[in-house]
């Protein structure tokens, strides 16, 4: 494996290997154990659009492994690259580093970068396209919270139309005999190009209550105001899909709620202290998963 452009690049075995290694790295990720696995190695973080969370978590992961980071985060810092093509920029950065994290507003940017780069490219999100490390940390979280990934009933709720995290996660979970429940307002329903590809059973719902008691995992995504021409419509929809203690009455005790964060009110803060809330642990999980990946790609493990 050289580059990580899309979750499709990873088969079930490589996914499970990464999750296993991430588990072993937990003490290092938490700072309880030191690692020099990537001592002297340099990671370049090239963010052509801002994403503080992704950038910080990659930098943390690299430094926990004893490596160091260079890069840029601010789109204005890239203004000196204006006129320079992405492929030229990548060739240059590849010469300065041992691996490159690329975040870019256009779909397919990471794939293009991987065609010209001498060092591994890791896709840190390309437009509405792929964000494979998010998918890996979602899978890692499900595995650690529930104890397995195989054969679960997974609900996805919120903006399923534009939410790339739920598209990639569905794609990945489809290899694990998942039963899918897609819950959203009609206007934000899971697109056909995703459901057409699924081998496992799936169903579409407008009301969470219909299915909640069945679920092992509920993956909540943000419903963005900008998707609604009328602010009143947004308020109604946001209200209807809000998760609070009352809504969760019928949930299985072991059901876990995931959310890629940041949230803007989809999950009431009174849920945070329940055993259902896995989203903060999920955010932390970005570190061990990205460490496992960096170790594999740079350290050759």
């Amino acid at each position: 494996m050289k580059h990580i452009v899309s979750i499709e690049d990873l088969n079930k075995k490589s996914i499970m290997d990464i999750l296993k290694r991430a588990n072993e790295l937990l003490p290092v990720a938490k700072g309880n154990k030191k690692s020099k696995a990537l001592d002297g190695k340099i990671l370049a973080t090239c963010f052509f659009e801002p994403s503080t969370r992704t950038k910080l978590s990659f930098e943390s992961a690299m430094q926990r492994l004893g490596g160091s980071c260079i890069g840029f985060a601010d789109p204005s810092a890239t203004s000196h690259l204006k006129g320079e093509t992405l492929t030229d920029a990548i060739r240059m950065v590849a010469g300065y580093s041992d691996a490159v994290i690329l975040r870019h507003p256009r779909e397919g940017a990471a794939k293009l970068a991987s065609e010209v780069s001498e060092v591994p490219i890791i896709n840190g999100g390309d437009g509405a396209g792929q964000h494979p490390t998010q998918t890996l940390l979602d899978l890692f979280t499900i595995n650690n919270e529930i104890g397995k990934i195989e054969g679960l009933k997974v609900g996805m709720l919120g903006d399923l139309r534009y939410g790339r995290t739920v598209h990639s996660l569905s794609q990945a979970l489809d290899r694990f005999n998942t039963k899918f429940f897609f819950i959203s307002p009609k206007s934000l329903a899971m697109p056909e190009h995703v459901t057409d590809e699924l081998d496992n059973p799936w169903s579409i719902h407008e009301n969470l209550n219909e299915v909640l008691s069945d679920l092992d995992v509920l993956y909540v995504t943000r419903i963005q105001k900008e998707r609604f021409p009328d602010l009143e419509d947004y308020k109604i929809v946001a209200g209807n899909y809000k998760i609070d203690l009352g809504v969760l009455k019928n949930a299985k005790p072991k059901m876990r709620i995931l959310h890629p964060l940041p949230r803007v009110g989809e999950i009431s803060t009174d849920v945070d202290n329940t055993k259902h809330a896995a989203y903060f642990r999920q955010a932390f999980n970005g570190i061990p998963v990205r460490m496992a990946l960096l170790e594999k790609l740079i350290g050759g493990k």
Partner: protein
Amino acid sequence: MKNNLLRVQPIRNGTVIDHIKADRGKKILDILDLSRIGTTISLLINVQSKIQIRKDIIKIEDRELNEVEIEKLALLSPDVIVNIIRNYAVSEKKKIEIPSLITGLVQCPNENCICNNEKYVDSKFKLLNKETLQIQCTYCKRKIEEEDITFIY
């Protein structure tokens, strides 16, 4: 076959595109912009072929199709046969195969795809289904069906 070729006067030099999917000939003329060449072109529509299936035929005088045009042809009508005619005889007979990777030929319909926004990058499509001609952008993964294919030139 012989009769079909004779329905319109045989050509001395040029190209005969045979076994075009019925009713696809006109589209091929348009997309390859063949009328621009300026030589005589004949289009035969719904010709009865040996195996009782209707087909179209295009005869282009004094012009041999180039590689790019032939690749486009493959996407417009798979299984076409291109006959290069020299001095009234078929000098070359090419059965056209669709390449598994189609480079620099088809426009990606996704405006935000990197291949539409980066200089010096050719579009690249993977052939997913030889029968339905469904293709997929290797960059943004957008899939397109045959009827939605737009060519770059």
